[in-house]
């Protein structure tokens, strides 16, 4: 049926909104939807061909109706595509703001793909390279924009958390070995399976990156 695939895409978009991570780009469905639109367009041209540009809907209501249905289907598909991409783009922007290193991940997976061929990269990096090439480009450029914007005010971290800290010090537990990190007042060695009571400001970045888990 016309529009089935579009619906699927919208459902994906809806689900994406509640996921913590961006799921892989549904290039198959997107391609099928565009193909459907193209098919519909061809149908319309074929139907209109015999009339040589002098089509009067009042004379042939049946043809007019089928044209209308096809047109509406095309428009709906377009809206579905737009909605899907918009949802993803918003999510990417959100990730840029929250500072998760999404372009780097995407780049890494791209390098993988270049080195080892698409098949292997798909197998091992399916979780990582969830962006389409266009989206990657978008993310990169958005990052650049953001960086330029932030660069105007060096003394404020615009991407920092908006919630005021409740405590100066917090408890964090180390999930991954992060090695030694430099803070304002010296170095901290973060080893797995230990718990720290440290200044929140020192470790905020690491919490965002998933090295540390904040307790309570």
């Amino acid at each position, binding site marked *: 049926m016309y529009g089935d695939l579009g619906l699927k895409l919208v459902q994906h978009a809806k689900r994406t909104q509640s996921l913590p991570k961006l799921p892989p780009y549904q290039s198959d469905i997107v391609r099928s939807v565009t193909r459907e639109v193209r098919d519909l367009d061809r149908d319309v041209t074929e139907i209109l061909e015999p009339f040589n540009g002098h089509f009067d809907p009042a004379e042939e209501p049946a043809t007019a109706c089928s044209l209308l249905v096809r047109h509406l289907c095309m428009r709906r598909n377009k809206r579905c595509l737009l909605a899907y991409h918009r949802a993803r783009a918003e999510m990417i922007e959100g990730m840029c703001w929250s500072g998760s290193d999404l372009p780097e991940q995407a780049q890494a997976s791209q390098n993988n793909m270049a080195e080892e061929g698409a098949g292997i990269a798909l197998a091992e990096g399916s979780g990582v390279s969830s962006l389409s090439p266009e989206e990657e480009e978008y993310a990169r450029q958005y990052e650049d924009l953001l960086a330029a914007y932030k660069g105007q005010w060096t003394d404020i971290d615009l991407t920092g958390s908006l919630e005021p800290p409740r405590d100066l010090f917090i408890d964090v537990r180390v999930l991954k070995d992060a090695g030694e990190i430099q803070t304002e*007042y010296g170095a901290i060695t973060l080893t797995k399976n230990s718990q720290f009571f440290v*200044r929140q400001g020192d470790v905020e970045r690491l919490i965002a990156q998933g090295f540390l888990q904040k307790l309570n």
Partner: protein
Amino acid sequence: MYIPRPLLSSAYAHLKAHAHSTNPSILLLCALDTDSLCAARILTHLLKQDYVPHKIHPVAGYRELENINKTLIKGNEELRFVICLGLGGLVDIAAFLDLGGGGAEEEEEGRRGRVECWLVDVRRPWNLYNVFGDEGGKAGVGGVKCFDDGDIEEELEGEGVAHTLLSYPSSKALASSPPPAHSHSPPSSPSQKLPLPPPERPPPSAKLLRRKLRRLRAKHESTVTSYYMQGTWYGEPISGLLYSLASDLGREDNDLLWLAIVGISSGEIIGRGIASGPPRKAGGLGWVGTTREDQIRGVLRDEVRRLNSPEAPHPGSSSNASSSSSNSLQTTARSPSDTAIRLSPEYRFMLIRHWSLYDSMLHSSFLGTKLHIWSESGRKRLHKLLAKMGFSLSQCKQSYTHMDMDLKRSLRERLEKYAPLYGLEGVVREGFVRCWGFRGCLSAADVAYVIGGLLEMGRKGSNSTSDSTTTPIASSAGKAPEAPVDPDPADETRKEEARESENWIANFWSAYDALEDIEALKSALPTAMDLTRAILRTGTALIEKRQIRRLRAFRLAVVKEGPDVSTFTHPSALSKLALWLGEAILEQEKEHRKKRHLPLVVASLNERRGVYVVVGTALGTRVDDEDAELERRSGRNKFGMAFQEVAHSTNARIRIDSFEATVVEVRKEDLAGFLEGLSLKSVVG
């Protein structure tokens, strides 16, 4: 050096003054047991209130301690304090950890200071090097400091003098003595810091003087040796010690008190009877009891009364309720915000509030061993007891909260009436209960059981995930025998060890979280029940099948089959089993009127790594006959030394890694040789 009890608060002030205010300069090393866990919680509470950044690192064994030394302590410029909770008391800690700081910058020492190490440990005997060594660091930061619960102050005077004279050349002629033979270090450890061999001093002219000195030296040596030769025993639980630090600082509150109570109750569960002596003479305790254990309980009781206002009689409504609750166990809070700790009668069956009366009685080690629950007649005896009390079995098998109100009310009275018929005196005693609003009510002993269960078995959910992660490994291990060219078996076992300690540490954190999270505690209740079920099942099987062999110097039980083998790969789970078995045997022997009881050795197979975990327990801690002094000595466990000696004398492949001296790991093939060696040791008997 050591910090006597009254000076704990000034030691804390010293810590606060010298710790870095923004960077974690304090490293808390915490052993994997409930008491240390509670102690760590208490200490971190204090540090947090002062905004002192710190770091907690759980440590499973000596090997890991070395790793930590390498990665975190050696050359760590920021580090000022290492606080060992529940570990390190038996060894010369200065030999283990690089406390000197960066290394070659001796000249910088004045500026930067050294790392100071606090030892807070229940295990005795103290390594005298920790207690009496290194007096130099008094003024600044540095050196090893032991928290003294009173043992050192009251009992170690003679040993202290002897040790100082022997190892420090202040009195020159005595300096030439070797240290006592039983330095309690695991063989795998870096060589103990021994004093240098006797520097041949030109003899003082008079021969007589020399002989006198030699005699003096022999005397001191024997003092020190006899201190070490007593075996191992336990002092006051460290959570209690840290609680007294908190109360010295005036910062005690219900949370800390609860932690201390849980820590102390846990000691009773795993058989760490406080066997270190008669009640303290003096000090801040000010409570006179007949034993030290009573004394500690008395102090806790006073603290509970002090911090929790007595029941404010609500007009009208509660007069009825409170009178009934004084008889039956409290299972619900009085009000949604009720988080008080209360004194309440406590039966010596665990988890009764969350189990059925029958199960709870059946699985209790106190009741089970006295009633000979492992045999059919024992179970009948339990049924008969219940019948005499007028409790129908169908009622007893319901969960306790749903039992008849009348029965619940009369439980204590009837139990006290009929228990003596079965030799169950003291089945009811004073305990502590805490409520968390309407979310739940747990007694201290129950919490200790649950935390112990979490430490040993892990959270249910995480267990299954860890199983799923380990299954590929297990299957690969299953494949390995087909292709015996295993790349490197040593490597494989090391990996297995790492995985095991990884698991233990994950368990540590879930226990750490559960300690202050009632929901997590409640969800872990089944774990504790599983553990007690496993103990009963395995213990029954061992006794029924007569698998406890009697050797010349000790009894031996080996767990190598059955559904619960994997449970008992954890040393403290195995210790609990050993305790259960020990009590059972003791009861049996009492019936046969035996005076002398052989100690018990329990070994359990860890199939994954191909080793046996061996635990030695001394029986007869609770026999109350003859001289008190004698009994006290007999409560001390001599297996620690025996294990060391066997490790030296046979060439069995043995690893002493646990902080518990009485736990040892022996390679599967070498168990027979090890036991043979052990049976030759007269120390054990």
